[in-house]
């Protein structure tokens, strides 16, 4: 087993990986950009190395300083997390060349699955069902129009190098083609450095259901059930759960076996996820394979009891899988809400600033994987996801009730977050019924209604503003308020004194 592992990432996932390392008795090395000197993840590592300026292209995406940090720290392996260099075959290759174990699949597997068109071809030849589409990058508007008509609208434009919901557009008719092509290309170029776009048939009322797999270096692979990821806004996953209401044991077995076959076709090893589109008719199609740890991996961990990050590390160290397919059985239900620093009342615009105050939920069945602490800066340089709130219940209703309770407890001051949005989702009859597809949020979420003030909250808002106004008018009264007879302040002072006595 390794003695020391470098975590080439930031935020909640870096913290998550370092927690696994700590539990395994392995020392961890963090890297950080100039903007992240005081970041939360840095505090979890035993050593931390600066790797460049705030812009991720010059730091977290820049291989040389990261590899140099691995060399200087004497690390034996690198965990890439997700995003940044996690799916860059060149990085995996460079690690191996330096004698560092890359905690992930082979560069070849990353490369094949990283090209959507390449992956489609590979899956077709392995007998894995794929969505009808055009496998070559689109060369012109005219060609795009011709192919769209042939496949039949609606069609989906996707970035060849894409992922994470960026660089995708649904196109319903001829007139939308030019603008959609331009926009998808622009987004793809800026996010992935490539403007190549391809097209496929858009499956209506689809669910996004994915299968977690684990494969060791000895050629043994298993699946760990599904994750339901249909609660999305503009292709960005917001809520995930495991298991899925739409998957029965028979479908679970068929999708699981297909996923293992897909992974086998590229000689996959380590943890990976095969994403499927599940149609209303129960047919499923290969969407893509994510050759890394997923953001939403905790829901699988909660229902299977398997620590996926530890398994990743063991596999990379050459150990065989310790669990067999027959050992995997989902227990209960888990839900994850991704908390973004985005304002749901204002078209989910990014909200940046300092986290002035933070209270995280606690209590039975609650897990929180957070990348921030009180005082943290949420900057515009990186992904706006600041934490993942996960709840477990014996059944789905209990997991939902716990999530609603935990969301009430969660207070983040200083930046706007998607917490109120998640309260709306969890309270929505359609989510509660389990009968939804990937279009649910875009069709149903209307901020003005969903986030409207209740009468009680309006009254409270007016009172709070009135108090601040009063403070401004009579600054001396603010001093007095509480000083004379407020029982709370007196109680607070007593507590302080008690504590001081205790310490002496």
């Amino acid at each position, binding site marked *: 087993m390794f003695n020391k592992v470098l975590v080439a990432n930031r935020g909640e996932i870096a913290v998550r990986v370092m927690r696994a390392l700590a539990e395994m008795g392995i020392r961890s090395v963090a890297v950080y950009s100039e903007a992240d000197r005081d970041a939360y993840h840095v505090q979890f590592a035993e050593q931390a190395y600066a790797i460049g300026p705030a812009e991720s292209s010059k730091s977290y995406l820049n291989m040389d300083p990261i590899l140099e940090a691995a060399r200087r720290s004497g690390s034996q392996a690198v965990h890439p997390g997700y995003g940044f260099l996690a799916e860059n075959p060149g990085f995996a290759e460079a690690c191996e060349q330096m004698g560092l174990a890359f905690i992930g699949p082979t560069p070849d597997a990353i490369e094949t699955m990283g090209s959507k068109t390449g992956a489609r071809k590979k899956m077709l030849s392995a007998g894995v069902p794929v969505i009808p589409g055009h496998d070559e990058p689109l060369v012109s508007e005219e060609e795009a129009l011709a192919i769209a008509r042939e496949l039949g609208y609606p069609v989906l434009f996707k970035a060849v190098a894409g992922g994470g919901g*960026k660089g995708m557009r649904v196109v319903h008719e001829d007139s939308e083609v030019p603008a959609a092509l331009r*926009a998808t290309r*622009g*987004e793809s170029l*800026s*996010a992935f450095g490539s403007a190549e776009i391809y097209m496929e048939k858009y499956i209506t009322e689809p669910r996004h259901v994915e299968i977690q797999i684990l494969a060791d270096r000895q050629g043994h692979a298993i699946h760990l059930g599904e994750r339901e990821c249909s609660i999305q806004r503009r292709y960005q996953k917001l809520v995930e759960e495991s298991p899925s209401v739409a998957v029965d044991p028979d479908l679970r077995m068929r999708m699981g076996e297909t996923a293992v076959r897909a992974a086998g076709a590229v000689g996959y090893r380590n943890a990976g996820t095969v994403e499927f589109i599940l149609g209303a008719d129960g047919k499923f199609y290969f969407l893509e394979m994510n050759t890394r740890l997923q953001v939403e991996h905790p829901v699988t961990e909660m229902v299977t009891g398997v620590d996926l990050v530890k398994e990743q590390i063991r596999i990379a160290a050459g150990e065989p899988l310790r669990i067999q397919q027959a050992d995997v059985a989902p227990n209960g239900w888990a839900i994850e809400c991704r908390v973004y620093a985005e*304002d*749901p*009342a*204002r078209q989910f*615009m*990014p*909200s*940046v600033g300092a986290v*002035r*105050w933070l209270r995280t939920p606690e209590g039975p069945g609650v897990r929180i994987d957070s990348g921030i602490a009180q005082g943290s800066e949420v900057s*515009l340089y*990186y*992904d*706006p996801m600041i934490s993942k709130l996960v709840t477990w219940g014996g059944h789905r209703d209990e997991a939902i009730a716990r999530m609603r309770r935990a969301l009430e407890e969660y*207070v*983040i*001051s*200083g930046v*706007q*977050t998607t*917490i*109120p949005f998640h*309260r709306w989702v969890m309270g929505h009859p359609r989510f509660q019924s389990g009968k939804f597809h990937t279009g649910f949020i875009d069709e149903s979420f209307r901020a003005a209604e969903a*986030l409207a*003030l209740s009468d*009680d*909250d*309006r*009254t*409270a*808002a*007016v*009172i*709070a*503003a*009135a*108090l*601040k*106004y*009063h403070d*401004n*008018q*009579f600054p001396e*009264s603010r001093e*007095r*308020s*509480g*000083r*004379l*007879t*407020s029982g*709370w*302040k007196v109680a*607070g002072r007593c507590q302080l004194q008690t504590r001081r006595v205790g310490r002496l």
Partner: protein
Amino acid sequence: MSPPYTRNRQQLRARVGEQTVDFSIEEENGVFRVQIGEESFAVHRRERGHGGPMFLLINDHPHEIDVEEQAEGFWVNVSGVAHTVEILDPLTALARKAVRESTGPEIETVVAPMPGLVVSVEVGVGDRVDAGMPLVVVEAMKMQNELAAVHGGLVRQVNVEAGQKVDTHDALVVLERVR
């Protein structure tokens, strides 16, 4: 024993979104009495140290509320959702009314909704644009956001160029409404 202290009650008006309410507030020995319409509230307050939300007991019901002062009023966060509450005393109300009623060209200023990087500017001074037309593309957190004209009109000013960093509320483009 200090004498009880009472502030003269002020008659005020608050606007939350589309709604306005009349209210008054007075303070006595650290307890606030707030009258909103017919209802009366006894409010105890505890500040939570630097930066934290106010903790209020309003008629014995606990509430946690963040309040920040902004140019347009108080930015009040209730249950994680921010609302602007404007407090109008009689003088301020009169002044705002006068501004609203003053005549002159109708100006639409398109401001940056968040800090980011200008990717492209789609218009130039003198262009006529329709409502909904993209004016500037700003990238923040790896997403490109098209900022469009709400009403449209004649482009009077373009204050930014591609590659420039902008902050929240920076005026990017100024339009004059054309009839």
